[in-house]
């Protein structure tokens, strides 16, 4: 039975680098034993936030509560429970076995160590007989990443934070890393926090996906972002010209180069005759990808319009009724006033 106390509660978190704001999260709560995905472009603050949640660094302002208690780096309450796998893991200059056992030695936890080391290496698909005595410089990039993950898994952590775990490894390693992380969550109830550009994977495995952009949270990750510059159009709307004489109209932006964020609910897919004409023209596009959002059972439809891609969510029945398939031409109806600005 999952505990009701959230594993993390973040309040009024703000952080600056050299005076420039990089994170601004008024409130965020993550339940225990859950899987949370963080997505967002490079520089959106994901890695910084994950380092705060791993209690490696401290934010300029705000509070991070772990299981109801405000914690800081080096707190005994979190040191043995939370672990982070950084994007480019560092292996210490020693053998694979010594790298994996390092965390156990720090905890002076020698109980059943040999079995746990073997178990962790097996979980990441590295056979102990072959890899345990290899030196750190005798590993490929994917193997090094898996050894680094094994060094975390051997600790059976309460919280496992993965920062772009599959960003620069081969396909085989990606599969092993994903499986090992999910196995930890399933077998030990480990809370997983994953930052990744693999949006489809995040939506498949996560209980919630959080979209970070310019240090702020923007919903579930299905939001479509359209970058400026914007030009004044007709009827008080502003437009962004797309390739092929198309344009998308929006409510007046706060600045010429603002970024428009459309939530998926602001789009409707259909044929012209099925929806009453609105005061603005729908966009013509083609379905570029259909995928399933596991936790809700909804269908994620990516619609390519000229040089941009917009995302809508549908019920499975609706998708079936419309006969959607990748490559199908559709009309995308939208509300220009549903846009949020960044």
């Amino acid at each position, binding site marked *: 039975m999952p505990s009701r106390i959230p594993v993390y509660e973040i309040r009024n978190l703000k952080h600056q680098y050299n005076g420039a704001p990089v994170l601004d999260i008024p409130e965020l709560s993550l339940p225990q034993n859950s899987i949370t995905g963080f997505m967002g472009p490079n520089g959106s603050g994901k890695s910084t936030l994950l380092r705060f949640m791993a209690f490696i660094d401290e934010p300029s302002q705000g509070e991070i509560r772990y299981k109801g208690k405000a914690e800081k780096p080096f707190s005994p309450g979190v*040191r043995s429970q939370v672990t982070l796998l950084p994007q480019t893991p560092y292996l210490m200059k020693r053998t694979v076995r010594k790298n994996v056992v390092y965390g156990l030695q*720090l905890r002076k936890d020698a109980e059943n160590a040999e079995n746990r080391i073997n178990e962790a290496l097996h979980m990441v698909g590295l056979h102990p007989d072959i890899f345990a005595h290899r030196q750190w410089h005798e590993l490929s990039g994917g193997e090094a990443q898996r050894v680094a993950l094994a060094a*975390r898994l051997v600790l059976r952590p309460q919280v496992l934070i993965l920062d772009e775990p599959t960003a620069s490894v081969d396909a085989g390693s990606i599969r092993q890393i994903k499986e090992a992380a999910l196995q930890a969550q399933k077998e030990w109830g480990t809370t997983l926090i994953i930052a990744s550009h693999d949006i489809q994977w995040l939506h498949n495995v996560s209980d919630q996906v959080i979209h970070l952009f310019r240090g702020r949270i923007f919903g579930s990750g299905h939001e479509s972002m359209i970058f400026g510059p914007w030009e004044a159009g007709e009827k008080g709307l502003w437009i962004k010209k797309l390739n092929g004489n198309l344009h998308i109209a929006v409510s007046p932006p706060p600045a010429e180069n603002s970024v428009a964020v459309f939530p998926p609910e602001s789009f409707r897919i259909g044929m012209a005759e099925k929806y009453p004409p609105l005061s603005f023209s729908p966009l013509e596009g083609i379905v570029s990808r259909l995928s399933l959002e596991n936790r809700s059972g909804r269908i994620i439809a990516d619609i390519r319009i000229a040089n941009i891609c917009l995302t809508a969510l549908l019920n499975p029945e609706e998708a079936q009724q419309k006969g959607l398939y990748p490559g199908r031409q559709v009309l995308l109806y939208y509300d220009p006033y549903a846009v949020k600005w960044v």
Partner: protein
Amino acid sequence: MNFLLDGFLKALELLFSGDPETWSAVSATLRVSALSMLASLSMGIPAGFLLGYKQFAGKKQVRLIVDTFVALPTVFIGLLVYAFLSRRGPLGDLQLLFTLPGIAIGQTLLALPIVTALTATAVESMDRDLRITLMSLGAGRKQLFLSTLWESRFGILAAGINAYGRVTTEVGISMMVGGNIKWHTRTVTTAIALETNKGMFDMGIALGLILLAIAFVVNLSLSFLRKK
């Protein structure tokens, strides 16, 4: 050109016949360099580690001074140490002038900035993910400190070897502070300088070869500590 070849052959003869004067200089070199390296490593490694590891006000300025001291001329160190150890100097009562410990003091001043600066560089150039990795595996402050020191061991080793090279090959300090006294403070390098002045190239070349051999043995014995 024959004198060079003759010198080389004579050098081999001196080396293998166990010439007492030659081996006296070798012994003085080994003893004085061991003393000065012991002192400079025991002070320079902690100082360099703190300089590279810790953030503090004025760090850049301290670093600049240490880096400048790396280029200290040996004759200048010799002059300073001579002035301090001479009878009129503030440390004259210690009677260390023209002794091996006196030379070791000067050589320590030569090696200390090298060990400190190169250790600081080794620690500074450690991957920034090392700290994240150690902390995320549960390291406390003390464990973070010790593990970082251990991880930078190859850079620190290089600092030690570099300093040892400078110490065993310097002439200025040994000549000025030691006085090049036969059977007493004559080191390999001061002997080379003297023998060359006397036109005794064979002895000079023999001592030069011994210096190279010492460097080779030291590096060989430390090579097992290296990365690959």
